[in-house]
């Protein structure tokens, strides 16, 4: 708790001092009379307010929400003694903003004794992250305005803003499958619903597998064999080495949204999904499946950010359980850092099934430009250069899906999965 004199006290003292000085200098009594109201105002500040004792309570309508959603924050102040003027400010982190027409995070009110005084306001959370909104700054003024008591209360209140996840149906299919039940047709024959070939009946075959049409035609029992449906291990490799553009439209934000959408899509297909953040340091989440894993992945994506480091992380140091041999690695990157491209090449050399989801940085930068002719030309040249990076990866046999963020992710993935299926069929 801090008490200090306000600028008004110094201002009154200055003007009163001037009036008295001029009065003595000129010998005119009027100037002493001029100083009198100022002196009375200063004396009125001598009856100092007592140390206010109060409790601050803060509640939020929701503490977990998606990007772009609003949350209502309610603040209540309960004072033991009346405070004539109390100014309360809920400190907002830089990315959070007040919702239009949703109230103010800074309010001046009167607190009566033992009666709650409160207000509420709405804030918009445009970008993902974990935000602390529990810092409340309270200033208690007396009515003279000559002294103020300041106090800072830190309440344990945080908001979790998850990335906005677009629904996607078309997902790159993995080449290799795992042993657990899933949605992908495996080359292995067994219990499944996808028919494969018809062969003569042998002892031990289940009668429900008998293909009656073939059996009647051939006058011998035949059974239909089925392909097994298995799941796959998907590793989402996020490039956190670079981030350009303004949040929430930066390349890293787009990468995180795409990663979240892919994770949600694959988990819905019962695949095991893991996550590796390739930034200044490696951060990972073990592959797993289920709703709990979806929650873990979303929490894991929240703190993704770029950090400066001279150290180049190496994926070959990751344990095998983090990066399983038969997994599909989807590298989500704006293709701006050669270190990440090197890591992708390294994975391909180690015979991983790799798909690169290249997120165009041009749209993120275009948002902050002035749209002049020179900017447009520069963006076009940069886009051409960026496409050439993707082409270089394609020449090395890596599947690259380009996503321009001004279009839906679903559209980019739909065209990509179609071309990947055709190329896989040709191979």
């Amino acid at each position: 708790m801090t008490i200090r004199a306000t600028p008004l006290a110094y201002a009154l003292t200055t003007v009163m001092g001037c009036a008295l000085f001029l009065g003595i200098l000129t010998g005119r009594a009027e100037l002493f009379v001029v100083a009198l109201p100022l002196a009375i105002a200063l004396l009125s500040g001598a009856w100092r307010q007592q140390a206010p004792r109060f409790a601050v309570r803060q509640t939020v309508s929701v503490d977990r929400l998606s990007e772009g959603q609003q949350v209502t924050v309610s603040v209540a102040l309960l004072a033991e003694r009346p405070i004539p003027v109390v100014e309360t400010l809920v400190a907002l982190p830089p990315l959070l903003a007040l919702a239009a027409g949703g109230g103010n995070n800074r309010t001046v009110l009167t607190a009566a004794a033992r009666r709650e005084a409160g207000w509420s306001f709405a804030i918009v959370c445009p970008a993902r992250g974990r935000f602390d909104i529990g810092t409340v700054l309270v200033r208690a003024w007396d009515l003279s305005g000559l002294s103020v008591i300041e106090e800072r209360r830190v309440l344990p209140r945080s908001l979790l803003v998850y990335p906005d996840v677009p629904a996607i149906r078309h997902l790159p299919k993995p080449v290799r499958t795992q042993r657990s039940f899933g949605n992908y047709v495996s080359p292995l024959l067994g219990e499944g619903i996808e028919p494969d070939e018809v062969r003569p009946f042998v002892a031990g075959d289940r009668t429900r597998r008998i293909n009656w049409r073939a059996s009647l035609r051939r006058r011998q029992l035949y059974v239909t064999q089925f392909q097994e449906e298995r799941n796959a291990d998907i590793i989402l490799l996020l490039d956190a080495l670079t981030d350009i553009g303004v949040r929430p439209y930066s390349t890293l934000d787009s990468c995180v949204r795409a990663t979240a959408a892919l994770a949600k899509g694959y988990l819905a297909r019962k695949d095991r999904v893991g996550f590796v953040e390739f930034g200044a340091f490696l951060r990972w989440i073990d592959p797993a499946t289920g709703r709990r894993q979806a929650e873990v992945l979303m929490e894991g994506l929240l703190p993704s950010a770029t950090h400066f480091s001279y150290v180049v992380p190496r994926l070959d140091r990751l344990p095998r359980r983090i990066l399983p041999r038969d997994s599909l690695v989807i590298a989500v990157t704006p293709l701006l850092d050669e270190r990440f491209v090197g890591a992708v090449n390294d994975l391909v050399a180690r015979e991983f099934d790799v798909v690169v989801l290249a997120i165009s940085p041009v749209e993120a930068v275009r948002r902050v430009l002035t749209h002049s002719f020179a900017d447009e030309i520069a963006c076009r040249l940069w886009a051409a250069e960026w496409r050439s990076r993707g082409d270089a990866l394609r020449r090395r046999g890596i599947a690259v899906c380009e996503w321009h963020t001004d279009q839906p992710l679903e559209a980019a993935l739909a065209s990509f999965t179609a071309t990947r299926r055709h190329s896989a069929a040709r191979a």
Partner: protein
Amino acid sequence: MNRWWTALPIAGLLAVPVWTAPSTPVIVIEAVGCLVAALGVYRFAKSAVVSGCVIGLLGYTFAVWSEGRGVDVIGSAIFGFTVLSLLDLSEFGRRFDGAAVAPDVVRAQVIYWLGRAAVVAVAVAALAALGYALSMLVPGGGRAIIAGAGALLAFGGALGAGITRRPGDFVPNG
């Protein structure tokens, strides 16, 4: 309570000295003072408002000194109250700029200011009566000494009220 309310004391800052001595220098000085004060109110610059008040005070001093009439207690009391109102209103606007101010706060503040204005009026009346009594009782040379001593006492008392710490006060950063 917005910044437009400060237009009233700024107008008073110009009007009282001009009413006391309607001369060109007074008008010019007061106009400059009002301009500086208005600029300070507009830009929420406390130092500019104080500068405007001091310039206005200089203009008023020049007005009463050049006029050389008897003591104008009412005019000077109005001028002092105008300066006080300007400082109070500009500080209130600056302090709570951008905040949502509850109507209760404005009501309580206005009542407080009105109460203080009443106290000022009573104090001016008492001072005028005391001055008149002293002028009757004390010879000419002693009046200046008494006035100077009173001024110093008032200044010292006001400063002491703002600086002295007493039991029950808060410990800074405590």
